[in-house]
C-alpha cells in the first residue's frame, strides 16, 4: 500500500502501525510553543480493538492499510467459519470467530452485513442495526402485563441473551438493536 503524510490524516483514515491495521478516530494539529508541530491522534487497532494515543511529527509519512468496508450477505456458519458473499461478484469470504466477534449473536442468513476486509480478508463484521430474533428460552410470560415495567433475560435463536419485558414468551419474534443489544419491540 501507499504512504501518506500527517497532513492527509482524517478520522477514518486506515493506517498500518506495528504491522497491524488501524483506523484514525481522532486527529488534532498542535504546534506547542515555538517548536515543531505534531499531529496528536487516537487510533483504533482493528485486530485487537485497543485504542492508543499516538503522536506523529507534522509531515511524517505513514504507511496506509488496504482496509475497506463492504456490504455482503451472510450465508452460513460451518461450526468454525462464518461465510459471507459479495452480492455483485458472488465471491465468498470466510471469517473466523475473532473477526466476527460479538456480531455472531446477530447473524441471520441472507442478512446484509458490513464486512471489513484487510488485504481481502475479513477482520470485522457489523450486523444490520436492527435484526429480528426468535426467543428460544425465557421464563414464562406474564399475561396481560404490557406495561413494560420490569424485565427478564431471554435467549434468542442466535444465542444472544437480551433483556426483555415480562410479557415476552418463547417463540416470540423480537426486534433487537445490535449496537447496544437492547430489546426494541415485538416484531
Amino acid at each position, binding site marked *: 500500500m501507499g504512504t501518506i503524510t500527517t497532513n492527509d490524516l482524517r478520522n477514518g483514515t486506515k493506517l498500518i502501525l506495528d504491522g497491524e491495521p488501524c483506523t484514525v478516530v481522532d486527529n488534532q494539529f*498542535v504546534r506547542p510553543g*515555538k*517548536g515543531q508541530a505534531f499531529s*496528536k491522534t487516537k487510533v483504533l487497532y482493528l485486530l485487537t480493538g485497543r485504542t*492508543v494515543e499516538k503522536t506523529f511529527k507534522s509531515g511524517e509519512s505513514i504507511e496506509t492499510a488496504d482496509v475497506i468496508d463492504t456490504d455482503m450477505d451472510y450465508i452460513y456458519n460451518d461450526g468454525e467459519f462464518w461465510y459471507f458473499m459479495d452480492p455483485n461478484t458472488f465471491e465468498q469470504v470466510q471469517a473466523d470467530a475473532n473477526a466476527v466477534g460479538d456480531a455472531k449473536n446477530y447473524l441471520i442468513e441472507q442478512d446484509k452485513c458490513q464486512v471489513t476486509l484487510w488485504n481481502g480478508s475479513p477482520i470485522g463484521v457489523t450486523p444490520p442495526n436492527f435484526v429480528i430474533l426468535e426467543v428460544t428460552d425465557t421464563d414464562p410470560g406474564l399475561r396481560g402485563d404490557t406495561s413494560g415495567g420490569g424485565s427478564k433475560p431471554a435467549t434468542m435463536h442466535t444465542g444472544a441473551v437480551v433483556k426483555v419485558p415480562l410479557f415476552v414468551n418463547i417463540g416470540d419474534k423480537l426486534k433487537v438493536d445490535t449496537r447496544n443489544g437492547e430489546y426494541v419491540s415485538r416484531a
Partner: protein
Amino acid sequence: MSNWKPTASIETMKARAKILARVREFFSERNILEVETPLLSRHSVTDRYMKSFEVKDFMRGEGFLQTSPEYAMKRLLAAGSGSIFQICKAFRQDEVGARHNPEFTMLEWYVEGFDHYQLMEQVFQLLNTLSHKPLKLSRLSYQDVFEQYLKINPFKVTVPQLAELSGDLLGDLPEDLESDDYLALLFEDQIEPKLGQANEVCFIYGYPASQAALAKLDPESPQTACRFEVYWRGVELANGFSELTCVAEQRRRFEMDNAWRKENGLPQMSIDEHFLTALEVGLPECAGVALGLDRLIMILLELSDLTEVAAFPADRA
C-alpha cells in the same frame, strides 16, 4: 455547493468589527501608532519549524508571504517610529485545526522603553478592556507550572526522564525527540488546558533560553529568556518578548537555525539583511507581543472553533 456561505454568522461578523474598533481605540488612547508593512516580502524567517508560503515572480525573484510582521516593524522602530501596532494577516503553511488556519489575523505591537513585565501588564489591560466581565491577572513562571502540574523542574529534568513521563501521559510518541519537544508536548497536553480559567488570564514567563526565539536572555539568570505567553481559557493567545537588540546575537541565532535546517534536510532561508542593518543602526529598547486576534475574538464571543469567527476558513477560501 453550500460552501459559498461564510462559516461565521453575520452577528459574529458585527461583533468582530466592534472588537477591532475597540482595539484601535485602545492603542490610539496610548499614542501607539497604527502601521502597515508588506505581507509579501523578499525574505522570510529562519525559524526551524516555520513553513512559509513561497511566491514566484516577486520583483524578478522569489518572495514569501509573511509569517509575522516582526522584522518590518522592527525596521520602523529603528527608523524612529516610536511605539507602533499593526493588525495584519500572517500565513503559515500546513497549520490547520480547531485553533489553526494557514491565514490568520495577527495583532502585533511594540512599546518603546517597556520590558516584558510592563508589556504583560498592558496586554492584560487590553484584554480587560475588551472583556464583558472584569478579569483577574495571574502570573506564573515556566518552572512554577511544571512543578505544580507535573512535579518536575523543566531546567533539571533529563531526556530519559522526560521520555518516560511523556510516554506514561501522552501515549506513543515519535522517537528522537529533544528535551524542548517533550516539554512542549507535556505543556500543551497537561498544563495549557488548565491555564487561565473563567475570568483569569494567565501569563507564563521565564522560558528556557533554548526557546528564546527573538527574546533577550535574562541577564540575571541566563538560562531563561525574557519571553512570555498569554493563556486564557486554556488557549494560547499571545507571545511576547523583551526584544533582542544585539545584532551579533541575532545573526548568530539565524546562522544556527540555518545550520540546523541544513542538517535536517530543510531549505536554508536567506537572511534578511535589511532587518540586521536596522538592528546595527540600533533598535530602541522595547518589548513586543504578537496576539492571535481570531483566537481572542473566539474566546470573547465564547465560541470554540476558529471557523466560527472567520468569514471563510482556508477550505472555503
